[in-house]
């Protein structure tokens, strides 16, 4: 270390039993032996008779402690006797939690102030300097420790006996894999097992091969005449538990378009189909899923999976409130703003026995994009 650096030096002749030493001398010596030096030390108040200021500070701190104690008692009293059971309306129970906060928090804060005031006002002012002992160990120490370590390596004989080293590699690797295997093995689940990412509740296989009805939250099926032009409704697959989180990938927004909008959507679909037939570049799949002026889009945003469900009737846009992707209903729900890249999948609609049904499952995987996501699902798979 540098030469300008002076560590406090303990006095070797210091006698701890020397009666001439005060206790503070002993404190100072103890500090010195640990590389510390008191550079400045001044009691907050001179010894002897307490001054007016000192007495006032003492009283203030005592008052803080007493108040903290009273608040703590108040907390216990309130906790036990204040009516705490939740009731609707403006009842005394509404104040239960705030009162607990005021009493408990108040007690802790008052006690904190008291203790901090004690430390700041009544403790001696001091500046102590401690030697840092920074940097690496002395060279000798490094050499000795290094030798000890290398000696241990040699004592095991691992260098002398390469056979053991090689043989040990096997259980090391084996047990390493064995340590991970149960965790990975128990958790792992093949995403292609049953194709949960490709199938939703609208697949007819969930309904004994028959087209699945569009139903409300309570399970009642929907007749076309129940949705007025310009209106929309969230519908679920009409299968057992279709409206529960078991089928969280299946909610669909059913929209009854006004005539002009419906015509626009039909034109858009026709244009895409024409482009597809001519082999021009067009976003697949092109689904003609309308039934009269009805259209149904998956509610699960193609960006991050939130429900893209804020319907702006004036602009015909669907907005996802999570990341503000916007989809144009009259253009097959293609994204027009925000981070979403793909259109919302369209559910092919039909009517059976006067109720709206899904002709098949979605013709593409719904929800967020992933690495191996197929662009489209053929109609056979979507109906079987």
């Amino acid at each position: 270390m540098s030469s300008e650096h002076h560590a406090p030096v303990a006095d070797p002749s210091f006698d701890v039993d020397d009666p001439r030493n005060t206790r503070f001398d002993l404190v100072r010596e103890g500090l010195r032996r640990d590389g510390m030096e008191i550079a400045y030390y001044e009691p907050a108040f001179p010894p002897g008779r307490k001054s007016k200021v000192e007495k006032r500070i003492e009283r203030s701190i005592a008052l803080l402690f007493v108040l903290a104690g009273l608040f703590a008692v108040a907390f216990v009293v309130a906790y036990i006797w204040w009516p705490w059971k939740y009731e609707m309306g403006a009842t005394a129970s509404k104040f239960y939690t705030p009162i607990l906060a005021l009493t408990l928090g108040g007690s802790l804060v008052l006690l904190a102030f008291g203790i901090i005031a004690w430390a700041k006002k009544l403790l001696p002012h001091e500046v102590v300097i401690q030697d840092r002992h920074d940097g690496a160990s002395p060279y000798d120490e490094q050499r000795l420790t290094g030798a000890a370590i290398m000696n241990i390596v040699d004592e095991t004989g691992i260098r002398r006996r390469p056979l053991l080293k090689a043989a040990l590699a096997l259980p090391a690797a084996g047990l390493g894999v064995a340590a991970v295997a149960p965790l990975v093995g128990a958790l792992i689940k093949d995403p292609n097992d049953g194709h949960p990412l490709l199938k939703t509740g609208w697949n007819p296989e969930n309904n004994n091969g028959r087209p699945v009805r569009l139903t409300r939250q309570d399970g009642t099926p929907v007749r076309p005449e129940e949705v007025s032009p310009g209106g929309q409704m969230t519908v679920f697959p009409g299968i057992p538990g279709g409206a529960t989180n078991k089928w969280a990938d299946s909610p669909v927004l059913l929209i009854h378009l006004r005539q002009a909008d419906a015509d626009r959507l039909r034109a858009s679909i026709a244009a895409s189909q024409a482009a597809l037939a001519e082999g021009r570049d067009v976003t697949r799949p092109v689904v003609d899923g309308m039934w009269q002026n009805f259209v149904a889009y998956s509610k699960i945003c193609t960006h991050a999976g939130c429900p893209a469900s804020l319907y702006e009737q004036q602009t015909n846009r669907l907005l996802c409130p999570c990341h503000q992707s916007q989809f144009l209903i009259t253009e097959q729900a293609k994204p027009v703003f925000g981070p979403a890249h793909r259109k919302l999948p369209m559910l092919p609609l039909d009517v059976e026995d006067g109720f709206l049904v899904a002709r098949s499952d979605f013709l593409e995987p719904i929800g967020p994009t992933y690495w191996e996501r197929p662009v489209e699902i053929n109609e056979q798979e979507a109906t079987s």
Partner: protein
Amino acid sequence: MSPRKRRFEFARVPAQIGQDLDERLGAATLLRRALNKVFPNHWSFLLGEIALYSFIVLLLTGTFLALFFDPSMTEVAYDGSYTPLRGEMMSQAYATSLHLSFDVRGGLIMRQMHHWAALLFMASILVHMFRVFFTGAFRKPREMNWVVGVLLFWLGFFEGFAGYSLPDDALSGTGLRIATAIILSIPVIGTWTYTSLFGGEFPGTEILPRLYIVHVFLIPLLLLGLITVHLALMVKQKHTQWPGPKATEHNVVGVRMVPGFALKTTGFFLLIFGLIALMGGLVQINPLWLFGPYKGEVVSAASQPDWYVMFLDGSTRLMPDWDLTIGPYTIPAIFWPTVVLPGVLTMLAVFYPAIDRRIYKDYEAHHLLQRPRDVPVRTALGMMAISFWLVLTISGGNDIVAEKFDISLNAMTWAGRVGLLIVPPIAYWVTYRICLGLQQHDREVLAHGVETGIIKRLPDGRFIEVHQPLADGHLEYAGTPVPKKMNKLGALGPAIRGFFFPIEKPAPPPPAVTPVSPADAPRELEEAPPKY
């Protein structure tokens, strides 16, 4: 032994216990060293303590919550005290969260304290990291502890996210759903990871019990271990300190741990605890009964995550729809702002000490802190990072900004996209210039003295401001604050103390404080030519 019965001396009991213990442990030296350990004093050294103390509150309140919470995803019909939701089907997790809020005595304040403490934990970690960064406390030999700190931040982040997901209300379910999209976006292993974590398809019935054990056991254990390492390294390497009287690279100047530091830090712990208790009962947070149970088709506008997640929400909102198609495979756009960006940010933080060594070509160990102005490149880089993060965080709530200020939502998104590119360089440049300006002003005061506010007219008609030199000779800048006002030199006398009435008599102004003797003026003129 004397046959006389020894008198029992009460005053000797502590000494006797001490001696008995030392005979068995031999720890007297160690104990004295621990009691006497020196801690430097500065308010900015308390920021990390806030994190430590909110972590303790988190452990206490979290243990209480765990006694009543059940992470099961089985559907049950709610039949608790909160009438608006009675009869509604919901997961057992959400039902027990409601139970905790309404039917457990004091459960609501515990839940809210837990949430507030979590927010405070993350906030204090962040502010503590700012302190360490801007003062250069991460430099050799403390790089390891900086990395441990970065790990602690991310552990806290995931711990918070897991906790946010557990109650299974509409908000936590939405957050979890976005997490699935992020997992799915990972190339090659995305779908496998997704189905493995969720035990099938989202949401399934496995994810909450799994997150629960992660939240109450796995991550807390790691946090506890890393916090121990963090503190042990701090004790071993001793705390950094500001340059000042007697402070060098080879010592620590401050107060002994006991009583001074210990008393203050105990008070500080109680203060943090008390403030969290006050917030927990007076300031509502996450009123999950208003959100309802999670349902795949339900979401509302203004769905924001906890504040420390908002920067990733913002980056996701700002990202253009750039899906990358490679043959039959796709890397969705969401992969970049949610997986790659945090990865890059973490790596930058982890390797920053090494980068800093190269920028300043400084490979030495340092224990004295630097004033941010004295390291303009680092300070400007830090402000650049903070402004980048701020643009993202504001964008994470851009729908709320748009609504409150009646701005177009799309305009907010574009402002964020553009802002993300141009605000950080501007922040860099402005910070850099401010640092240089402050440096220059320090040197100016050291060379010419403090402005007195006294304007003098010279015989030839010119006006100059009189400066009070700090010393007769030349003063070298020492990395410490330079007095810039006359009352810092004692010229105006101390302010009278006391809030409602003076608690002490105002000291008479020191006698020799006439700022400048008439004889000084010409010399002043020579040294500091007046500025026009």
